């Protein structure tokens, strides 16, 4: 696999080149956050950032989208007039490996099995994902504990690695290979490659030590009836911030917005943290308290998804930890559950 050199000084020119054929999203530094924005001519963007507050999933799986429109007229009732699908050629530049792994997860959920999601997949297929490896993992980063890595290429088409005033760019997919070849870059020289290697080593040293989640999936379902969930969830205020910021969360609602002459079928984000998530029309709620809802969150991410699609539903990006209004830390939840599974095992012996 060729290793190309992308000088940092050439980024604005790269943006212009990309914009000739593609829509471009890149990180933009705002007063109080970094957010992925659409880059127009001369718009500033940066690859010198920790992570965006909102995960990049919003570009592929927006908070609300129209699935179809329908019209009603005298002789035609509820005639579906359009099924909007976004397949505008796009480049997303500079997302972190955790976010790219989030896309890998969504690819499996929305693209495997019996039902495929045309809205998500159209955007995904039309997009070149250029991920940026993490030279400086943060205190809240734990991708390495959930099957990821600050230098993982999963989910991306290209991976950029920090070097001396430049990035080393390596394709991760055929799409990435073709895209890189079209840019007219030079191949990376030995000096830049060596610097990139040194930076990568230092980055791995910075990772906060945390026991890998591996193996947890086999033990968690045994805790289904445990009271530990109620204790874990007691301070949760069910606001859904964790769900909305999570690169892996993907539950949604479908409903119709009905107007006099037609309407739209709307898909919008839902969250298992909300009380109404599982409430039945009878009024019965099989997950009646926040403990049951937290149990669902953990089991979905750490037991069911590994079983169903072969990877955790958590990519270790740390957003939920930083932005939870009551600072409920999923790492502490996992640590607590480890203690509980060990205790349960002991109790059975």
């Amino acid at each position: 696999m060729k290793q190309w050199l992308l000088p940092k000084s050439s980024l604005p020119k790269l943006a212009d080149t990309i914009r000739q054929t593609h829509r471009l999203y890149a990180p933009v530094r705002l007063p109080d956050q970094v957010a992925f924005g659409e880059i127009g001519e001369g718009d500033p963007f940066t690859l010198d950032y920790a992570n965006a507050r909102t995960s990049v999933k919003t570009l592929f799986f927006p908070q609300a989208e129209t699935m179809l429109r329908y019209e009603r007229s005298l002789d035609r009732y509820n005639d579906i007039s359009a099924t909007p699908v976004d397949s505008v050629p796009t480049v997303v530049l500079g997302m972190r490996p955790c976010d790219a792994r989030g896309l890998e997860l969504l690819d499996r959920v929305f693209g495997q099995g019996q039902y495929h999601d045309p809205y998500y997949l159209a955007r995904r297929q039309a997009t070149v994902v250029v991920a940026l490896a993490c030279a400086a993992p943060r205190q809240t980063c734990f991708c390495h504990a959930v099957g990821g890595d600050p230098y993982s290429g999963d989910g991306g088409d290209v991976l950029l690695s920090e070097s001396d005033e430049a990035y080393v760019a390596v394709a991760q997919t055929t799409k990435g290979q073709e895209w890189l070849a079209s840019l007219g870059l030079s191949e990376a020289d030995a000096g830049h490659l060596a610097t990139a290697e040194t930076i990568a080593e230092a980055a791995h040293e910075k990772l906060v030590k945390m026991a890998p989640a591996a193996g947890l999936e086999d033990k968690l379902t045994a805790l289904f009836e445990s009271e530990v969930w109620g204790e874990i969830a007691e301070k949760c205020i069910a606001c859904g911030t964790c769900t909305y910021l999570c690169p892996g969360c993907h539950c949604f609602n479908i409903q119709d917005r009905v107007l006099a002459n037609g309407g739209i079928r709307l898909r919008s984000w839902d969250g298992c943290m909300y009380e109404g998530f599982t409430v039945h029309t009878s009024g019965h709620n099989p997950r009646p308290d926040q403990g049951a809802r937290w149990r669902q969150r953990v089991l979905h991410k750490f037991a069911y998804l590994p079983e169903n699609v072969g990877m955790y539903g958590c990519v270790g990006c740390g957003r939920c930890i930083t932005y939870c209004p009551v600072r409920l830390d999923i790492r502490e939840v996992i640590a607590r559950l480890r203690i509980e599974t060990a205790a349960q095992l002991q109790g059975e012996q």
Partner: protein
Amino acid sequence: MSSLPTEIQQQIADWLSTGEIDLFIGWEQGSVPLGATPAFVRDPQDVSRLIWDATCENNLTAYLAKFKGQKVGIMVKGCDARAIIGLMQEGQWTRENLRIVGVSCPGVVDARKVASALGITLEELDQAEIVDDTVVVGDQSFALADTIHDMCQTCNRRNPNIEDVHLGETLPETPVDDPFGHVGEMEALSSDERWARFQAETSRCNLCFACRNACPLCYCTVCFADRTQPQWLTTTSEAEDVQFFQIMRTFHLAGRCVGCGACTRACPQGVNLRLFLDKLRLDAQEVFGYTAGVDPEAQPPLRTYRQDDPNDTFL
């Protein structure tokens, strides 16, 4: 981060071991910089986990609704205490079921301000600690007073007005010249300009409901926003849903909001919710001479009628 004084720890432990309370709600150290986390203590031995310092920003009274009818102990700052009175005014809690540790608060630190002062985002604030009256981040330090939330800087209720025991020294209640000064910004605008300001501020809202869930006075068992028959809003982040929710929540709190600021601190998107809620608090004062959360016997204005109620606010 400091543990509670021994006598306070002993008092809480006594309340628990004698069964005067089943549960004490306080704060303990969190896992991210400058953020304590709520603690639910039932065993007297766990009282040593509890802390009090300028990272204790959550209004714990928002949890009281979950324990309605039980005997609960709780730690409250001056602003939080007003919510207890607000809940008593609305018949949600009785005094005898509460044991209250009141703490005089000079303000709680806003981690975003610290990040901003360093030119970084919250994700990039890896470490920070409070040492006496300063916030120390590596080799940089800031005066704590400069990093407290905006709402704390205009606080005129630093000491709780309801408590059983008091932690620490009572702070002087320095009269604040213009506690509603920030509202003046809205009042100076024309009607169209106010609407534009409201639209701009709430455009950052993505309807996560952190504000509602952190609010001690939002205790409806089924919120209007969650109703499906009829359905009042969908959960998109489009203006029509966001604005409807924000307007309705704000007006549902008219004459009831105690101004604790928990909503604004909870918001992950940094929406300045106080701007609208404090306007209504100011209105309640000016129109009805009423402040929520002060006198448990006082009647909320939208629930009562007086013959001499001013009529000029009605169309």
